[in-house]
């Protein structure tokens, strides 16, 4: 009895300590970045374009570039990834060689380092297709990179929808597509959104592959064929070339805030969608 009690107490402490370490590390990083970056941030830092390679002015063009590139990659990858997931889970036969190949490809692509995609995007989109350093080249490269994540998470989300829903829908005379589109997909939305949030994180955090495909221009990107610099690329260049550590930390701080905003909005739309459902 006594021994058991002590064991429980020790284990509780060990688990509490693991949780504490995780929170501690995260908070330390965030507070350090805030502490170092806060002095760089004011309204001008957000609203003005960079001047003198980022030594002066703000980072407005890189914020626009980040949002723009993320949207381009999602617009390409979400329909393709969700479509592939629907095919694999709802239409393909379990024995299908093609489905096996698609699954294998998605799994393999998910583990390939981003710089490999960057190299491919550079050779294929930038040079061979003559799209140059542009948001389209960068967006397509990122789309390929996040495609496995979106496909896998959508597959899991679709798979977790109870089989009963499908039979019950078919039993009132719904077609297969009506069942998928009215019952299965709405129930799978939370899982699909999780995949999208993970993908946004990857795009926002990417540097090397984007330097190779979207370039690192500081100009305001207006159309898809123009090059762009994302916030992460900007941060990398500011720190790497010793332009300004203060501004690098300021940028890092804004990246964290951007991610928080994106996650919040994704969760909000998720809640709206599931409210509409129930």
């Amino acid at each position: 009895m006594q021994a058991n009690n002590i064991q429980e107490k020790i284990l509780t402490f060990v688990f509490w300590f693991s949780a504490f370490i995780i929170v501690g590390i995260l908070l330390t990083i965030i507070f350090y970045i805030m502490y170092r970056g806060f002095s760089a941030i004011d309204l001008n830092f957000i609203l003005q374009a960079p001047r003198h390679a980022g030594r002066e002015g703000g980072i407005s063009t890189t914020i626009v570039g980040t949002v723009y590139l993320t949207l381009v990659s999602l617009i390409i990858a979400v329909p393709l990834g969700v479509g592939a997931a629907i095919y694999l889970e709802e239409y393909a036969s379990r024995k299908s060689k093609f489905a096996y190949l698609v699954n294998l490809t998605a799994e393999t692509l998910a583990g390939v380092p981003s710089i490999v995609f960057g190299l491919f995007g550079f050779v294929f989109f930038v040079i061979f297709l003559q799209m140059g350093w542009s948001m389209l080249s960068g967006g397509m490269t990122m789309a390929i990179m996040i495609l496995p994540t979106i496909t896998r998470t959508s597959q899991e989300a679709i798979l977790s929808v109870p089989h009963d829903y499908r039979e019950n829908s078919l039993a009132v005379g719904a077609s297969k597509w009506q069942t998928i589109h009215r019952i299965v997909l709405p129930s799978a939305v939370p899982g699909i959104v999780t995949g999208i949030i993970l993908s946004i994180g990857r795009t926002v955090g990417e540097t090397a592959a984007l330097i190779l495909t979207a370039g690192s221009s500081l100009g305001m990107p207006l159309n898809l064929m123009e090059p762009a610099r994302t916030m992460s690329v900007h941060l990398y260049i500011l720190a790497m070339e010793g332009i300004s550590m203060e501004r690098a930390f300021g940028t890092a701080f804004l990246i964290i805030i951007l991610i928080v905003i994106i996650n919040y909005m994704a969760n909000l739309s998720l809640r709206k969608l599931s409210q509409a459902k129930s």
Partner: protein
Amino acid sequence: MQMNKIIKIRSENINVFYKDFQALFDIKMNIEENQVTALIGPSGCGKSTFLRTLNRLNELIEGTVIKGQVYLDDIPVYDKVVDVVALRKKVGMVFQKPSVFPLSIYENVAYGPKIHGIKNKKQLDSIVEKSLQAANLWKEVSDRLNSPASRLSGGQQQRLVIARVLAVEPEVILMDEPASALDPISTARLEELIAELKNKYTIAIVTHNMQQAARVSDYTAFFLNGEMIEFNRTDELFVNPRDKRTEDYITGRFG
């Protein structure tokens, strides 16, 4: 007793295979209109498999081969020209586990009619009310049609599923152990409902509960190892079973 019996569903030599396993052997059965036909037998005897051949739900399982023919009003159900979706609209099905969609009570019932192209709000309202009333659920839910269906009790959910099936105006209702997940009171209500529904619909019900079969059905078929051993009027089959195996089963010697 009935002068002119109308056969609603007729199965001819139905054989079902799952890969190498033969689940059903030469099932011949006539299901009479506006009657309740119960399918009984031990687990794995093929009674559910047979039920699912009637609305072609078996073919969703990969590796299933179905031989033979089922006639619904003399229309061959397994004919190439038959539209499966239209068939399933006529032959509705209620499953073992009440499975409500993650929608409101109203949207659950309106689901089928909407799928089949009804958009008019007034028309949908009246279908929803009529179906819920027919399923004996209207009184309990009429003041909260827009709340999530998942908040209903198990028995209410099963009646909601029946309302959802009724909303597309089927002719036949297949029920696959519809009471097995319900408490005794909900089961009694469901059985009352079945007795009311048979005035308008033809019902085939799979049940593992012999008392239930005896209470609700007009005809009973006893299945064993994929064969239909005996098929007769329920009062006959339970009082005077012709086959020794039927007798053993209904007297509880195995099961």
